[in-house]
């Protein structure tokens, strides 16, 4: 089985978010970048398929050379090789088209992407890849088994989960639950050394047009100070929630 894991290069979850160039660009000054957490759960599940079922795992990212350390980290975790599509990730649709070109030339059976990236939260790339490559698609995937060409997946739904059966080729929108937080792997020294020698192929983009464009950003207006209520006066809290906030 050939698996492609799509890796988004995103600011660490603790990052302070600021904008530059008159609020039109994300300011990366001082920001540490990581593998998108939803992608990392998928990558870790892919490692399971590699170790138990002999799968071959390729990681891919659409982005400039600055994203390569993130791909190297994925290689250090255990992916076999990496591909970087050499173009900035502008909007979800164009990223999906770039990835589709990689999928069509690589002949992957299973494509694992995160449900959404934690930066732009578009939540569209996995579904669009599935649509563009005519593959089956399971979103919000929290469990996956593959046997030959058939697959069984668990999908989180509002208020519960459902178990579905489907077949390869398959695209997964993954999230926590595919593996547990405690299953995530920190690359060891041997992994890091080996990652330096693994192939990281840079491919040039196919021509696409962006369907959507980011115009500008703004930050939420700062909140007023908290109203403190004494623990001995919980009646007052009920009163405030009813009469002032009007939420009960």
């Amino acid at each position, binding site marked *: 089985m050939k698996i492609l894991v799509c890796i988004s290069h995103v600011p660490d*979850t*603790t990052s302070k978010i600021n904008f530059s160039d008159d609020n039109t660009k*994300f300011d990366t000054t001082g920001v540490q970048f990581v593998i998108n*957490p939803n992608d990392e759960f998928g990558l870790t599940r892919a490692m399971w398929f590699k170790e138990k079922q002999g799968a071959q795992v390729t990681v891919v990212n659409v982005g400039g050379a600055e994203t390569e350390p993130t791909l190297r980290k994925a290689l250090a975790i255990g992916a076999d090789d990496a591909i970087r599509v050499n173009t900035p990730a502008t909007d979800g*649709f164009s990223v999906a088209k770039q990835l589709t070109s990689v999928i069509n030339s690589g002949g992957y059976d299973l494509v694992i992407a995160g449900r959404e990236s*934690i930066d*732009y*939260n*578009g939540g*569209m*790339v*996995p*579904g*669009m890849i*599935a*649509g*563009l490559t005519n593959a*089956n*698609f399971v979103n*919000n995937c*929290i469990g996956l088994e593959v046997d030959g060409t058939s697959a069984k997946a668990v999908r*989180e*739904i*509002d*208020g*519960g*989960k*459902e*178990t*579905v*059966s*489907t077949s390869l080729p398959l695209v997964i929108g993954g999230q*926590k639950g595919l593996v*547990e*937080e*405690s299953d995530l792997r920190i690359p060891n020294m041997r992994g890091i050394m080996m990652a330096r020698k693994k192939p990281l192929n840079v491919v040039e983009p196919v021509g696409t047009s962006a*369907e*959507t*464009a*980011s*115009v*500008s*950003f*703004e930050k*939420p207006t700062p*909140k007023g100070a*908290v*109203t*403190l209520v*004494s*623990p001995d006066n*919980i009646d007052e*809290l*009920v009163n*405030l*929630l*009813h009469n002032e*906030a009007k*939420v*009960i």
Partner: protein
Amino acid sequence: MSVLVYTESEQGAFKKAAFEVASYAKAVANQLGTTVTAVAINVNDVSALGNYGVDKVLNISNTQLDNFNANAYASAIKEAAEKESAQVVVVSSTADSKYLAPLLAVSLNAGYTSNVVEAPSSKSPFTVKRTAFTNKAFEMTQINTAIKIVGVSNNAFGLVENTGSASAEDFSPSIPDLGVTVESVDKATDKVTIADAEIVVSGGRGLKGPENWDMIEELADVLGAATACSKPVSDLGWRPHSEHVGQTGKPVASNLYIAIGISGAIQHLAGINASKVKVVINTDSEAPFFKAADYGVVGDAFQVVPELIEKLKAFKAQQ
């Protein structure tokens, strides 16, 4: 030309999100000077949509669509969009809508923007405001395609009532290869889901152990609220992952969010920031959550929460 809206339902009845997206679709239609057509799948009575500005309902009844299937639903909405020459298609931010929207975008060759919180600020170029960086920022986004798909955030635009009536028309789209078959569904039907809840009661590590969740459940019961938890709590296995709210868990956009024993890590605050009113109960007055909250109680949850339950019961009895 029209605005098409997918009005989601469950077991024959509309979800709350359906009325919110209908309200949004009406606002867009007013800007564009056109009408709103809704697509409803296996809904018993579609007349309520008229109260939210829908002019016409394409009513689909098909037992093959009893279980949600993203391919089949996206294909039905696509057929409806073509029939109505829709310029704009509006969907919600439920798990199902977010599942089908990218497939719909590919089949209509439409630009899609999710997590939209306001009516378009401009119709040409078509520009909408959405949340990004998990609620740490807003992004103004243009959609430049002929057909545009807007995914509206839950509990952001709100319900706007209208005095109209919707005409219903039977619609029988073709059903494509499903690709994915539902084997079983495991869902608590008696509980409010985090996505639908007006009020969410959430517990953190300050509660010391899963055995102390009874009072969280009871508080949620009194308020008709959903229960949630912080990331450490789900990682420790005290509560299921499905309750984890925050940047890598579920987003919350309730009217009231009550955080108990949660210190307020930046990732947690990002995930719940879209909630309108936030209450924090924590022993540590230096906890970051107090900077993000509207109301706070510096106190021991094991004393404050039972008392809050009693006071709320008395309040509810009075109402």
